[in-house]
């Protein structure tokens, strides 16, 4: 048996090539028009069945190539194929910088040609549960006021919102704190603007988005459910370029320019004036705005060294004067925002050894105060990290990924009020390392075992090994099978606070780390060129989930201040502990490109929690559970669609009408209703009797199904060197009254009380107009 195994490995690892003279081809792939590196481009030979795909830095390597003459092809969706005849000598290592020419001039739209490679092969290269969505697809989705990354993701299967009022995402039954958000490698902890209505990610500044809904490799960790990694634009290295957008509620601009021959810089800025606009229609509303800005510089030092420096800052600011005519009127102030910075050094040690090193800083800060109530609150988080990631190609069919991360995390929460002081200050260190192998025993197989080690240093230290395994198999020319499993750990807990910034705490002596195990199986079918069907089924098992207690009654102060006020410094008693599981199946039928593109998705899912001392420790469904969800998204170039229907070919128009549609239907969310009411008073001496509610068992009922249709229409006119695109977007065009929760009201007349029940609804019909400019 052992002999057979060794022989099998010997043969499949192509060890014979160790004894032969071979060469390699490596390099980067760029967009010829702006010099941006392209991740996911395919590089292969016409004559022999070997190839590679560029990584997130646009780098590729094909090793162990026998000497000879070849035709190298590089293809990427939306670009013309690159072909070059190459002669490779013994031990020769060729380095290339491939420039791909955009296939169409109007790259502003998603109406581009498809890749020359088979759709099934492109699907095969994608990791399981990973979704590709381009910034352009996000911009084309009808939006509430602003194009928003997280809201756009909510139209994909397995990713859900909790309500229209929040951009937070719940991935495959996981809560919003189980998502890892990375922007140019730096962690972002509270990515929220406008009380959670929008995320902090400006879609104009984004170059690439990677979303993994589960089963992710050893490269990522620290969260239980998903990874959202965003890479911002490096900047146009060929010419000055700008985009702008203005609407009733906000304006934004993105500029990119080359820095001589060796780099580029991009900058974007966005600011809302929703408060000023609202004041035209309403009196006595708070002063409110948010802004965010991003600047990134990219330096192409030489073929083996690239450097990028990225900085982001965003802030929300709210001020309210309760009585503008009174000199001693109470003032409410609340501001919050993120600042991130990252320095990335990309270094190619040798063609087979590619690496990235990051130094990142991420900070979140919020300040709240009300003068009359003497309440002040400060909620800060500071993360400083150094991490490295390497890719080493051992053989043509065996490579390895490895890396490390050293993180120093400080969370501070301070609240000072007449009732006491809360002072939660935590300093933590988090060290991780990982190693995974990528093995292709045959071109039809992809196997990636991996292992991640976590060391979380708190008052109580945590050390965990997190194994991962992923496998992909090309069953036929058009069908792929995929599977993945892994153990995931999380050492952070979030204290959710609707509409205001959440507070992060960490695992410690009171709270064990959270754990999840993922099991995922996927099926992919190429229906036709550029049309695919993906089916994935998953099961997730959670241990030690923490949810904020409904009441804070059993806190014990650690000390008292000179005024006798209690000082609370411990988190004990803050959370309920529980376990749970999520399972489901998702269908995604998608056409990514063409004059009509979009997707139809359906997911069937169930999440259950069992929480200590809640619901008599019987399972219940959390509020974010949805049994059935249907998403339909369509983008259409109207003129070319009509031509297509008439049997005519695609034609470039200087002026085009673009139509967008987003439909969502989901089962109603679980809710706890009122079982009865009773009449009582709160303080014994106060003659103030009222009706109070007594709830049913937790989340024992379902609200009516949620349904919504959004539409957008854009008129895009291309001038010689610039584009003007006015648009109208209508959110919830049917003005459907989707219920968020139930309101109970009482009316008292002549000693009798009548109780009425009403619904609090999600967003009504919301139109937005604006104009986009590109120059």
């Amino acid at each position, binding site marked *: 048996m052992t002999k057979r195994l060794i022989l099998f490995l010997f043969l499949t690892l192509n060890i014979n090539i160790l004894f032969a003279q071979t060469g390699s081809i490596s390099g980067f792939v760029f967009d010829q028009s702006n010099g941006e590196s392209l991740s996911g481009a395919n590089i292969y030979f016409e004559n022999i069945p070997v190839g590679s795909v560029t990584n997130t830095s646009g780098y590729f390597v094909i090793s162990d190539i026998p000497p000879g003459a070849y035709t190298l092809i590089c293809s990427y969706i939306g670009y013309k194929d690159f072909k070059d005849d190459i002669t490779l000598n013994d031990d020769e290592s060729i380095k290339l910088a491939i420039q791909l020419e955009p296939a169409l001039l109007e790259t502003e739209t998603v109406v581009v040609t498809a890749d020359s490679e088979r759709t099934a092969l492109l699907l095969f290269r994608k990791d399981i549960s990973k979704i590709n969505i381009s910034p352009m697809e996000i911009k084309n989705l009808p939006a509430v006021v602003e194009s928003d990354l997280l809201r756009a993701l909510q139209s994909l299967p397995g990713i859900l919102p909790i*309500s229209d009022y929040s951009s937070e995402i719940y991935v495959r039954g996981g809560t919003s704190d189980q998502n890892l958000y990375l922007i140019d490698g730096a962690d972002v902890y509270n990515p929220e603007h406008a009380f959670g209505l929008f995320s902090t990610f400006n879609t104009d500044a984004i170059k690439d988005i990677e979303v993994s809904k589960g089963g992710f490799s050893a490269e990522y960790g620290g969260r239980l459910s998903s990874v959202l990694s965003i890479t911002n634009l490096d900047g146009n290295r060929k010419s000055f370029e700008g985009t702008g957008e203005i609407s009733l509620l906000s304006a934004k601009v993105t500029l990119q320019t080359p820095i001589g021959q060796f780099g580029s810089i991009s900058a974007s800025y966005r600011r809302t004036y929703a408060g000023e606009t609202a004041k035209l229609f309403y009196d006595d509303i708070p002063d409110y705005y948010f802004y965010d800005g991003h600047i990134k510089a990219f330096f192409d030092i030489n073929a083996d060294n690239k450097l990028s420096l990225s900085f982001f800052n965003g802030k929300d600011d709210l001020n309210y004067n309760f009585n503008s005519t009174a000199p001693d009127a109470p003032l409410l102030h609340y501001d919050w925002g993120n600042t991130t910075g990252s320095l990335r050094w990309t270094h190619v040690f040798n063609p087979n050894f590619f690496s990235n090193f990051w130094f990142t800083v991420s900070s979140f800060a919020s300040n709240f105060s009300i003068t009359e109530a003497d309440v002040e609150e400060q909620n800060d988080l500071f993360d400083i990290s150094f991490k490295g990631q390497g890719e080493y190609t051992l053989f043509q069919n065996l490579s390895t990924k490895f890396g490390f991360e050293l993180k120093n995390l400080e969370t501070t929460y301070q609240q000072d009020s007449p009732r006491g002081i809360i002072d939660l200050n935590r300093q933590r260190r988090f060290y991780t390392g990982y190693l995974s192998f990528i093995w292709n025993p045959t071109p039809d197989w992809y196997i990636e075992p991996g292992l991640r080690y976590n060391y979380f240093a708190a008052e109580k230290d945590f050390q965990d090994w997190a194994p991962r395994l992923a496998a992909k198999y090309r069953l036929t020319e058009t069908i792929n099978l995929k599977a993945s499993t892994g153990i995931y750990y999380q050492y952070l807990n979030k204290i959710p606070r609707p509409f205001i910034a959440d507070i992060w705490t960490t695992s410690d002596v009171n709270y064990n780390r959270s754990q999840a195990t993922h099991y995922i199986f996927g099926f992919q079918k190429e229906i036709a060129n550029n049309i695919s069907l993906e089916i994935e089924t998953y099961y997730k098992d959670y241990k030690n989930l923490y949810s904020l207690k409904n009441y804070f009654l059993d806190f014990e102060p650690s000390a008292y201040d000179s005024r006798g006020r209690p000082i609370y410094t411990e988190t004990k008693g803050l959370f309920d502990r529980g376990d749970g599981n999520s399972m489901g199946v998702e269908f995604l039928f998608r056409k990514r490109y063409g004059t009509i593109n979009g997707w139809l998705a359906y997911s069937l899912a169930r999440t259950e929690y069992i929480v200590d001392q809640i619901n008599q420790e019987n399972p219940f469904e959390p509020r974010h559970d949805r049994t059935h969800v249907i998403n339909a998204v369509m983008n259409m170039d109207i003129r070319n669609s009509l031509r297509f229907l008439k049997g005519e070919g695609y034609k470039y128009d200087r002026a085009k009408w673009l139509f967008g549609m987003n439909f969502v239907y989901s089962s109603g969310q679980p809710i706890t209703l009122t079982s009865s009411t009773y*009449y009582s008073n709160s303080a014994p001496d106060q003659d103030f009797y009222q009706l109070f509610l007594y709830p049913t068992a937790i989340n024992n009922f379902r609200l009516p199904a949620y349904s919504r249709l959004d539409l957008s229409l854009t008129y895009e006119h291309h001038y010689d060197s610039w584009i003007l695109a006015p648009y109208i977007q209508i959110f919830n065009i049917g003005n459907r009254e989707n219920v968020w929760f*139930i309101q109970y009201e009482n009316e008292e007349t002549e000693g009798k009380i009548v109780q009425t029940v009403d619904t609090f609804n999600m967003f009504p019909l919301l139109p937005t107009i604006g104009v986009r400019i590109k120059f």
Partner: protein
Amino acid sequence: MKKFAYSFILIFTTLLLSSCGKTSVTIDERTYEPNIVINGYLYPEKPVSNIQITRNFPIGTTIDKNQIALSEASVNLTDIETNIVYELTYNPNTFAYEYIKEDLEIDYGKSYRLDISANIDNSDLQASSTTTVPEKGLEIDRENSIFGDLFYRETDETGKLITPQVAYKQSENSAFYLLSISALNADIHTFIYENPFGLDINDVLEEDGKIENFQYRVRWTRPENQNGGFSIMEISWFQIWFYGPYRLVLYAGDENFYHFYNTHRNVQNIDGNLHEPIFHIDGDGIGVFGSAVIDTLSLNILKK
């Protein structure tokens, strides 16, 4: 061409129609379970009175306040230490149960159980709850309190607001301290229109608000500074909405009172969902059977 166009129109119309309209939520009898509602407290060295035993109602019921008391219930109080049972009787004037004989004196630090049997909607229900009276000790320290006559938002020589405050010594074994602030002459004429919030009580009443929400206020705190000295509870000026006399009642409450007070009014999250209050009642009962040691003080707010 036509086939595609018709299909598109059909699908679009279907999606549009399915995303129109109003949804409704029906809360019917399925959610209802009858319960005995208890609202009563014991105070040391005081007679047992005003133990209100009522019933709950399905949502949407029109409730006649004078008909909710369960006057036919069997209500007994047991001294846990002696196991002596005292039968409470219904007083139709107060719509509550009381013990009128003189052989029962509620004592500091002792535990008492309330047992109730009643019939609601043809169901025989039973509920019981036990309270442990806090120890002796609560006493308002008048020397260090700021009370009596005060001008509204009165300031000292330096211009700093003088805030009414209640200094007190604690009772051992109490779960919390609640200061009940009641304006005794609250109406639209005594309302403080010069408040810094610019709030007008007439606007509130027009919008179906209740004057009692301004008339009755509270502050509460957990036991503090247990090592000695006195504790202070300040009454912020935004809790004062009327000129005239105020009654300040300070309670050193037991755990039943503490949990009831802080949970029964807060069962709805900001996202609208509900969660259970914490009641220390066994069987088919909801509400509170608690105990407290009390002391009182007065305050009088004057117009400048």
